[in-house]
Structure formats: structure tokens, C-alpha cells
């Protein structure tokens, strides 16, 4: 019994430690800057820091850019990965295994590792500093193809054959039989992909250079850089503003998020 309560205590201490940075940011954000490092129960509350942060950085524009980016990436991924996964799951064709192995290279060597050459490619096609340029390297996702292929393989052949007898073509079968049955996989993949691209930083940083294209992470990077001289309380408020949408979505759909990450990891 004693070890049990000790364990509970340890679990709790660890949890508090883990939430501390966020709690600290929240403290600094909702109090006047003078209290950023002074922890007094009677400290006055204020939303002034949020107002200042909102004035300094164009957050609405950054959010709009991120939403456009995430939508573009996800729509492209759904389309391309569905088609490719179907080919791998249900077709026997020469070169299939080689093609699959080549696609899986992307799981290991992500586009951000190749940022130097990818930048040159984007520059060559004249798309530098556009939202599609941020999305393009990620649209054909090896991970998405892999996940959907696994799901499609489990669809009973009988269903497909029934549709074939009715004279349906391959794209009709894909759309009517496979896609609806894979709905949980699409949801899991969507949550993982949205979290990844909402939070992605390095590639967007490299390829964007203006307010009109920068996603929220890069915007925050510009805003929170120490050399801007903005005070800590305002930076905390700005940081909380930028993480709020995804964090709130996560708090509301905790179970779905955790299960999606699990499903995506255990393959």
C-alpha cells in the first residue's frame, strides 16, 4: 500500500512538473509585466498583455495562412495518398515492391532535411514565398500512403467483387467501397497531419518571407525573437495566442487526438 501512495505522489509531482512551463506562461500573460517573475497571490489580473501582443503581430493573418496551409496539405494528401494506397493495396503490377520501397524513403528522410535542394527547386518554379510552396513537399506523404494501404488491405474482397459485378469502375469502387470503410484511418491521419503542419517551423521559415504567407509558427518566431525587445509578459501572451486554437481543439477532443497518434504510430 505504501509503495502505491508513493507512486501516486511521484506521478503527481511529475505531472505538475510537466504542466509548470505552461502554467508559468499563463501566469505571466494574465498579470501586469511587473508580476512576471513575482509570484504573489494578490497580483492584479489583466488582459493588457494579450491586447499588446495582438497589436504588435498580425496574428489574424498568420492564422489565416496556417489554416490555408493545413487545408491545402490535408486535401492534397487525402487525394494523392488514397489513389496511391489503392494501387498498392489492390493491384499486382511489375515494379510494385520497388516503387513502394522508394516511396518509404520519405518516412526516413523528411522534406525538411532536404531544405537546401528543395528551396532551389521551389525557386526554380518561381513559388518562393507562397503558401502552396510550404505545402508542396509534404502533399505526397509516404506515411499517409502506408497507413491507407494497411487499411485498404483489410477491406474484404467480397465487397469489391459485388461492386464489380454491378459494373463499377475502379475509381467508383475506391470512392464507394474503400474510402467509406477507411473513415477512422482518415480521421486519425487528419489529426496527426494537422498537428504536424500547424506546428511545423523550419521549412516554412525558409520558404516564406512576408506577412502574407508566414504561418503562425514562423510569425511567433519573428515575434518572440529576443532581439525584438518585446517584454516577457507580452511574449507569453503572444505564445498562448498562437498555441490556443490547437490546444483548445486538443482539450476538447483529447481522446481522438491520443488515439490518432497511437493508431498512426502502431502500424
Amino acid at each position, binding site marked *: 500500500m505504501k509503495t502505491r501512495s508513493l507512486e*501516486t505522489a511521484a506521478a503527481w509531482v511529475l505531472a505538475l512538473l510537466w504542466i509548470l512551463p505552461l502554467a508559468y506562461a499563463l501566469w505571466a500573460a494574465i498579470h501586469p509585466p511587473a508580476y512576471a517573475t513575482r509570484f504573489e497571490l494578490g497580483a492584479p489580473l489583466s488582459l493588457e498583455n494579450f491586447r499588446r501582443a495582438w497589436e504588435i503581430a498580425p496574428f489574424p493573418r498568420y492564422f489565416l495562412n496556417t489554416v490555408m496551409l493545413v487545408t491545402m496539405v490535408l486535401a492534397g494528401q487525402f487525394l494523392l495518398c488514397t489513389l496511391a494506397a489503392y494501387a498498392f493495396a489492390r493491384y499486382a503490377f511489375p515494379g510494385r515492391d520497388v516503387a513502394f520501397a522508394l516511396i518509404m524513403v520519405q518516412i526516413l528522410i523528411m522534406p525538411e532535411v532536404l531544405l537546401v535542394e528543395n528551396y532551389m527547386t521551389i525557386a526554380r518554379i518561381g513559388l518562393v514565398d507562397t503558401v502552396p510552396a510550404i505545402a508542396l513537399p509534404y502533399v505526397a506523404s509516404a506515411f499517409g500512403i502506408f497507413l491507407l494501404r494497411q487499411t485498404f488491405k483489410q477491406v474484404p474482397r467480397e465487397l469489391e467483387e459485388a461492386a464489380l459485378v454491378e459494373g463499377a469502375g475502379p475509381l467508383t469502387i475506391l470512392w464507394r467501397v474503400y474510402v467509406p470503410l477507411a473513415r477512422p484511418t482518415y480521421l486519425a491521419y487528419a489529426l496527426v497531419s494537422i498537428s504536424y503542419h500547424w506546428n511545423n517551423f523550419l521549412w516554412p521559415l525558409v520558404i516564406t518571407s512576408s506577412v502574407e504567407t508566414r504561418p503562425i509558427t514562423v510569425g511567433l518566431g519573428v515575434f518572440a525573437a529576443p532581439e525584438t525587445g518585446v517584454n516577457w509578459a507580452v511574449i507569453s501572451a503572444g505564445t498562448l495566442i498562437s498555441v490556443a486554437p490547437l490546444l483548445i481543439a486538443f482539450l476538447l477532443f483529447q481522446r481522438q487526438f491520443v488515439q490518432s497518434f497511437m493508431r498512426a504510430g502502431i502500424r
Partner: protein
Amino acid sequence: MPAHRRVTVHPPVQAWLLLLPALVLLVAFTHWPIVASLWDSVHSTPRGMRPKAFVGLDNYAFMIDDPVFWQVMWNNLLFALGTIPASIALALLMAVFVNERLPARGAVRLAYFTPTVLPMVAVASIWLFFFTPQLGLLDQVRAAFGAGPHNWLGDPSTVLWCIVVMTVWKEAGFFMIFYLAALQAIPPNLTEAAAVEGASRWYTFRRVVLPLLMPTTLFVLINATINSFKLVDQLFILTKGGPDNASSLLLYYIYETAFAFNDWAYAATLTAVLICLLGGLALIQFVLIERRVHYR
């Protein structure tokens, strides 16, 4: 599947048409850049009127003589050794904690997992203030014990470890969910049997649970290792690789070489090294998995 089933025959050309859009983009943004990195690494950077020229292994020779390259490789090794075991051990501990009946288990799990959904830049901008000399939380705690202020991010001997600690905080909760899933998949009668036999909880954990978690550990290990080469976002906020490259990592150095120093050929050379490192990792993973299969 019954043997008599007629296998649907689709013409191969249809399959290739389905693959085409994905393949075009993958070739353009994964395969081509890999080949191009190798190609550019044996050429010079075009400057002004001078086009790029074949230089053989000159870039690699330069790299061998570049002290910064060795420094970032060393840093990356320390970063990997600092983050991988710690985040895996913590992840396992967290999973064991929340897998048991615990008051407010949901809240505890939430606390562990939350850093996963935050962007690294935001995490860094929060932690930046932890490390601020004198005013930061770290120094305030130290002051309570009578220790003087310390410039955590300005001191070459502490800066990398600050980044390691922050990265472990960010990653552990993510790896926890894989252990949690694996723990929940262990049939309860296995651990119950061990308990009936009079085995202590620690013994059961070590001899029954831990071996069953091996595949998960391998999966997490590979992910953590890849991440140790990929996670550099925090450097942009915290240190910019400084002081004096003490916290720079390979991918950050690649970024700097290309976009701050405009030395594209050398950046390609460094990228080629990173590609080889990741490729070697894949090979090790492959061998490990092969061996595990053979043991069964």
C-alpha cells in the same frame, strides 16, 4: 482467404496512373533532392559570373578540416545521448503511472501529453524565460538555495543541456502513448500469474512486462533517434546555435551554411552526410528487426 477465389485482374497501367501524382511529387521533393545533394556536393557554389564547376571531393576535404563541422557532429551526438535514453525512460515511467488506478488519472495523462501538441517554437519561447539569468525561474529556485545567478544559455558548458532538458520535456509524453498502448495490450492474466507465483512487482515488470514492450521500445528508439537529427526549431529562439556554436546541431548548421553564408555547395555536402547518417540508421533498424524475427 479461400483458394478458389478469382483474383481480380487490373491492368498494370491503371496502377501506375493511380500512383503517378504521388510519385511525381515524391520524386521532385525527396528523390531528386537526395541525388542533387550528392551531385552538388562534388561541385562548387556558383558565384556571380562563375558557374558551378566539378571539384571532386574538395568540399568533403574542406568539411574534414572544418572545426565547426566536428563541433556540430559532437553536439548532435551529445544531444542524441542526452535526449533519447531520458525521454524513453520517462515515457515508460509515465505510461506505467497512468496505466494504473490513480486519482485524477485523466488529468495526469493530459499533463504528460500536452507538450506534444505545442509547436517547438512556442515551447522554446516559454522555456527561454526559465533560463534567463537572475530573473528566470531556474535562477530564482537556485537563489532560494543561496546559489548565485548563472547565464544558462550563454555558457558553452550548460547551453546544450538546457536544450536537451527542454526537448525531453517536449518528447516524453508523445512516446508515452505508445508504451501505454502496449501496456494495455498485455493480457492481465500474465501479470496475475506472476503475482500468484509470488513475484514482486518489480520482478514482474522486469521479467514479464519489459520484454513484451521490446517492439515498442525499438519503435520509439528509432523515432527518437531520427528526431535527434531533425529537431532544431528550438535553436532559432533559444540560442541561434551559440554561444560560439556550442549548441549548434547538424541540421541547423546546414540551414546556416545555405541561408546565412550562402555556401550552397557546402550545405549540400553537409546534407549528404545527414542523408548517409539517416540511411545508416535505417540499415541498423532493418538488421535489428530481422534479428528479432529470427529469434521467434
